[in-house]
Each structure stands twice: as C-alpha cells, then as structure tokens.
C-alpha cells in the first residue's frame, strides 16, 4: 500500500485513540461526579423528609400526558398505575394517536369512557382531534382520540388540553412508582426557575407486576434484557447523574419527564419532524431560556422511577437503537449553533460537544477505527503486544464503567434485593464486552445511516404486556 494510504490509516488510528481516551475519560469523570452527587442526593432526601413533603399541600397540580399508539397490550395496566399515584392533584390525559389496534376499545371498556367537552388552552398545530372522552369511573382521566400524527404530535395534542402549570410526559407503556410524582416535582418546589426534570427509567422485565405496580424486583431471565438493565443503570446513574452534577442535563427520557407547560408552549411544543422529540425538546429549552436570558434549571432526579418493558428480541432492540441514534443526530444537527458557543454556557461548551463528537460521531469513528486497526494488524504494522494491550484496555475500561454503575446503584438505591442479582450484574459488566457492545455500535451506525436518509416514524415496539408469564421473577 502507498505511503499516502498508510498515512490515512495511521491518522484514523490516532483519531480512534483520541476518541477512545476522550470518551472513556468523560465516562470515568461522569461516574466520579455521579458518585459524589448520589451520596449527597440520598442524604438530602433523608434531611428533607419526603414522607412529610408528601403530606404537605402546595404541591403543584400536574397533568400526565400519555401518548398511546397500538398499546392495547399494556395501556390499561399502565393507566391504572397512573391513577393510583400518590399525589395531591393530578389529571391523566391519554392521547390515542390513531392506533390501528383496539387501544381505544380497551380504554373504553376498562375506564367507562363517555364523550365530553374540554376547552383547549394551547394552540399547537396537531393532527385532527376526533373526540375527547372522560372517564365516568375516574373524573381525572381524559382520553383524546386523534388522527395519527406521531408521538410528538400526540404529546402536543395532550399539551393543548393541559391546564395545570406542570405536565408530565410519559409513555403509555410505562409504570410510574406511586411516589414518583412527588419525588420528581421536588426540583420545581425547591427552585422556581426549574423548567424541566427527568426521572430514572428502570427495566420491568423480570419484575413481578400486579395491578400496575411493580411488587417484586428481579433481573430478567433472558440475556438480552439483562444486558439492558446494566446499560440503563450505566446511562442513568453514571451518565445522567454525572451531567446533573454539573447542571448540564441534555436528555430527559420521553418515558418520564416533567415540564413547565408555559415554557414548553412558549418554545413551540414538541418538534414533529424528528424521532428524538424528547431530546430535541430539552436541547431547545436550553436554547430558548439562554437566548432569552431567562434564569432556568433542567434537572435529572435519580429517585423517581418509571418502569418500562425493554425489547427481548435483537430485531426490536436494533430498531429502538436505530431510532435513538437518529433522534440524537437530528437534535444535535438542528441545534448545532450551540456547539462550542459560549452564549450557551457549559451546555454549549461541554455537554453539547461531548454528545456531538463522542456520542453522535462515535459509531462512525469507532467502526472506522476497527477497520483501520484490522488493516494495521493484518499488514503487520502493529506489534502483537500493543494490539493485545489496546484490546484489553478497551475491555477493562468498559468493565470498569459498568461495575462503577453497579456500585452506584448499591450506594444509592440498591433496588435489586437478591445478592445473586448483584453478582449477575457484575458478571454482565464483563460479558457485555463480547459482542453486545459491538452490536450496539453497529445498530447506532445503522441509525446514523438512517438519519442521513431522513427516515421517520415511531418504530414498532412489540409488547408482551406487564405481568406476562415470561416476565416473572427469575
């Protein structure tokens, strides 16, 4: 091969080395910051006495907006769990986004719906509203039946009918823990400038669910969901908590986040032309507030929990990751003006560049790197010891980050009561390096390509329904 080709290969190798060091340093620092923040958070919770807070009036009323699309398997359980939430004043608005299955029929039967009038207070453009229903059995439950317009459109429709100062966006297939609203609303009480707060998402596969409540927590029996349990712990406890520690939360999961209605409406609601409407909204809120010089805070709170079913088939998981990557890319490209822009403070100088270069471009760099690495090795241009050392380093670093997340879980919430589960999680930290992480990179690369082709849509997610036999405690 010519010198020029080798120069390119070497440059790629150097790029990958740099990427590898930056990414893992970022993750390690984030885990470290999360460790400190979680310790402080748990102590603060004890000092504030949450049970006392629960009993106090003055909690702002909240509307839960749950968009549903072909959710007949899980929607009734999920809505039931929402209605049982322990919170002073809340409404639930389920938005049936033109489901092709019997979602509306299941809701009708389960909650005794009747057509009702409700004046919209927002003016966001949405697909046609067919009918508004109210439950005769639960006066705080409303169902909006609308033509299909996508998840963001459904959320906007719910937002138009919201009358409370705060709204909580959730997935119709998520189960909120009873005190989740009280916990997630705390930043809004403590700091009136808070415009958004996100909670933690945990995997319900393997847990026992009864009447919409997770009553026993355990790891799933199958490997794929198990690996995702570890992944979620790493993403939320080490990742998002780390960013929260430096007040730079850039992502609030669409499965569970609370927002100030007026600010979201002011910022234009959810963007309907992206599959990553949750991340896009949070990035836009940062931008909106910064550009208007509004004092604001966007928080991640690690103790309010939403349980969700994760994919247990590779094909479904691939589609999910493809969609997440597309959402990430669309959000970051749309708001690229924030990149290294001091006008946006630490978001523009720190969080945005991290997500832009390391999370968004990561799969392309990593796959290119694997290729260059392979060429280098095959051509005999790298010493065997070095290759082995580098691969071991990558493997060991990955393991460190995963086990750090498990340690953070034990430090803070220790939700998995069986010691066997703890040992399994530690073991998974080793196992995931052999295939799963590489697969995830491939799927994210697929998402990058999809984003380039501007693919749209919710992406099909197969649901088994909470409490299905396959999901008992292992």
């Amino acid at each position, binding site marked *: 091969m010519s010198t020029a080709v080798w120069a390119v290969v070497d440059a790629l190798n150097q790029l990958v080395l740099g990427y590898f060091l930056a990414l893992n340093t970022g993750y390690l620092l984030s885990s470290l910051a999360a460790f400190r923040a979680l310790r402080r958070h748990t102590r603060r919770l004890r000092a504030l006495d949450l049970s006392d807070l629960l009993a106090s*009036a003055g909690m702002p009323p909240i509307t839960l907006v749950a968009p549903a699309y072909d959710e007949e398997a899980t929607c009734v359980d999920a809505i039931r769990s929402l209605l049982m939430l322990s919170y002073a004043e809340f409404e639930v608005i389920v938005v049936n986004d033109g489901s092709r299955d019997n979602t509306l029929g299941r809701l009708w039967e389960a909650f005794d719906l009747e057509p009702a009038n409700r004046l919209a207070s927002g003016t966001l453009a949405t697909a046609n509203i067919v009918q508004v229903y109210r439950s005769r059995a639960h006066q705080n439950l409303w169902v909006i039946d609308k033509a299909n317009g996508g998840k963001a459109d459904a959320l906007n429709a719910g937002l138009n009918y919201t009358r409370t100062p705060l709204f909580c966006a959730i997935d119709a297939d998520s189960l909120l823990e009873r005190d989740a609203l009280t916990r997630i609303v705390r930043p809004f009480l*403590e*700091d009136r400038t808070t415009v958004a707060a996100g909670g933690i998402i945990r995997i319900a596969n393997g847990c026992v669910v009864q009447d919409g409540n997770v009553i026993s927590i355990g790891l799933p029996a199958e490997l794929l969901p198990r690996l995702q349990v570890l992944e979620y712990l790493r993403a939320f406890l080490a990742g998002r908590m780390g960013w929260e520690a430096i007040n730079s939360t850039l992502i609030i999961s669409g499965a569970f986040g609370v927002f100030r209605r007026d600010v979201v409406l002011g910022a234009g609601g959810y963007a309907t032309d992206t599959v990553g409407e949750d991340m896009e909204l949070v990035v836009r809120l940062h931008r909106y507030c910064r550009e208007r010089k509004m004092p604001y805070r966007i928080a991640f709170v690690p103790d309010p929990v939403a349980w969700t079913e994760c994919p247990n088939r590779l094909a479904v998981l691939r589609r999910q990751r493809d969609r997440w990557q597309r959402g990430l890319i669309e959000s970051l490209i749309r708001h690229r003006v924030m990149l290294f822009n001091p006008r946006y403070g630490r978001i523009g100088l720190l969080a945005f560049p991290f997500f832009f270069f390391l999370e968004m471009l990561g799969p392309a760099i990593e796959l290119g790197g694997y290729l260059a690495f392979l060429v280098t090795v095959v051509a005999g241009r790298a010493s065997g010891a070095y290759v082995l050392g580098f691969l071991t380093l990558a493997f060991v670093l990955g393991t460190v980050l995963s086990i750090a997340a498990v340690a953070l879980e034990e430090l803070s919430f220790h939700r998995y009561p069986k010691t066997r589960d703890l040992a399994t999680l530690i073991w998974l930290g080793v196992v995931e390096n052999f295939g799963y992480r590489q697969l995830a990179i491939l799927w994210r690369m697929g998402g990058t390509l999809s984003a380039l082709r501007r693919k749209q849509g919710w992406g099909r997610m197969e649901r088994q329904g909470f409490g299905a036999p396959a999901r008992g405690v292992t």
Partner: protein
Amino acid sequence: MTGGVLDGPDPALRFLAVGLLLLLVLIVALIRTALSYRAANNHTRAEWLRREAAWESAVLGVLGGSLPDAELHAVIGSADRLYFIEYLLRFARRLQGDERGTVERLAAPYLPAIAARLDQRDDEFRARAINTLSCLGLADYGPVIVAALDDRSDLVAMVAARSLARPGVPEYAEEVLRRLGRFHQWRPSFLASMLAQIGLDVAPVLRRTLLDAAVEPSVRAIAAEALRELHDPEAADPASEVLRTSDDRDLLAASLGVLMEVGQPEHLDLVRPLIGSKEPILRARAYAIVARLGGADDVAVIRDAFHDDSPWVVIRVLETLRAAGAHDALAQLGEAS
C-alpha cells in the same frame, strides 16, 4: 513492523501495562465497594430488625403505662442511642396527643447528642438534626430551630422553616415570615401552603404582612395566597386594600385570589377595573369574581369574557359558573356566544 502509530515502542507498552494494572485494581476495588455496600445494607437492615424487635414491646409498654421510662432507657445501649432516636422519630410521626408527648419525653435524654450535630460542616447532617429536634423536642429546642432559619445553608433554613410552620403552633410564624424572602427560589405556592398548614391562628400575622407596604411584594403575595388557602373571611378587606394601593402583578393576582374565596359584592367596585388589565391572570380572576358575586347587570360583562384573547379567562369563568351551579347562566351565555 514498520513504525506505524500502533507499533508501540517499549515505553508506550509499559505505560499501557501500568494503565491496565491500575484499571484491574480499580475493577477489584469497585467490586469490593459494591459488595461491601451490599453487606453494609444487609447488615443495617438486619440490625434495624433486631433493634426494632427489642424496643417495640418496651416502647409500647411505656406508651401503655405498664413500664417505667427507666426500664426502657436501661435497654438502650450507648452505641444504639442515635438509632433509638431514629426509631422514636418514625414512631412519633404516627402519634398525636399524649402518646406523642410520651415519645418526646422518652427522646429528651438523647436529644443533646442530636443538637451537637448542628456544629457539623455537612449541610445535610445539620438539616437532619433540625428535623429530629423539631419533631421530638420543639418545646425545648425552639430557639435552636429559630436560629437555624439563619443557617448558612438554604436546605437547613428550609427544614427549620417547615419544622416551625407546624399545625397549631402559630408562635413561630412571624419568625418564619420575616425570613420568607430568603426562600425566594422556592415555589411561592409551596411556601403559602407551608404557612397555611399552621391553621387559622396564623391569619392575623398574615393579614398584617399582606398590608405592610414595607414588606417585599413577593412575600405579601405569599401571605395572600396562604390566607386564600385558609378561607379567612377577614382577609377580604386587606386584599381589597391591596387592589387600591399596589400595582405588583403577583400581589394583585394573589389578592384577587383571596377575593375569589371570601370576597363580598361590596368589593366588586375595586375588582371591575382589573377586567381591563393586560395581564390574563388578572383578567381571569377579576372576571371569575364578577361571575361569582355579580348581579344581573354583570351578565354582559361576563359575556365579554367569552371573547377574551386568552383561553384561560374563558376556562376560569366557565369553571366559576359551573362551581356556582349557574347552569342557566351558562346556557344563556352559550346561546348568546
């Protein structure tokens, strides 16, 4: 091998090896940390069960009058004192009246150790200590808790404020109100509810605060909101006085809120001009008051509300009419609109 970037020289390999070794040590340390947290959590849980089993019958004995305090104190080992306080704290929250008094008496000998924690640097420890002292020894430690309102930490100050704003204990209300400006970051409705939970005994202090032009408008607005929550009938006059003298939006809105609850037709003359306000919240509340208190002459005014630019005005008026059971008026307005 020909000098590519991956063709590591020995120092680089040595560096890699050292890095790997350190990471391996880190893995072992993290696993150890996770396992020791688990062991500690399990141990704590087991110890709590043991202690609770040992203390429960004795505490119930004292509460029932069949066991003297001294016998219970004799059971508490010196290493268990802080745990015992924690246990009593849980117990106390479920009790009222004489039984609560008994628990406070049982806790008294151990509270100086808790008060000593107020010297700690850690904000959360101090906040926790204030919480404990207020729950189990407010009578003895009231001044200490009042002093904590001026603690350098906002968390400690807020825990102290919440501890002092206790139902049926109005004597600390002024101290809390005086420092309310300190909590400007907190949500005003939360602060108002905190004050309102003291009960109607606090109303005179709140009315004075509402009328005091020397107090920050935001604090006066919180006082008004608390009066609204208390449905204090005597708050209507101070609230209407605010309408006459203030132009602060939040204070005006809070005062209108008071009149929405306890206003009388004689206050309408002060309210009607606010129907023309450019602030939707003031218009909505003013219309709602007119809808609730107004007479036949006001039907045309209320009809205007249905053409207001803000949907909130319409929603508020509809809600008010519906709550008042004015279905005929609603039907008439519906036809006219």
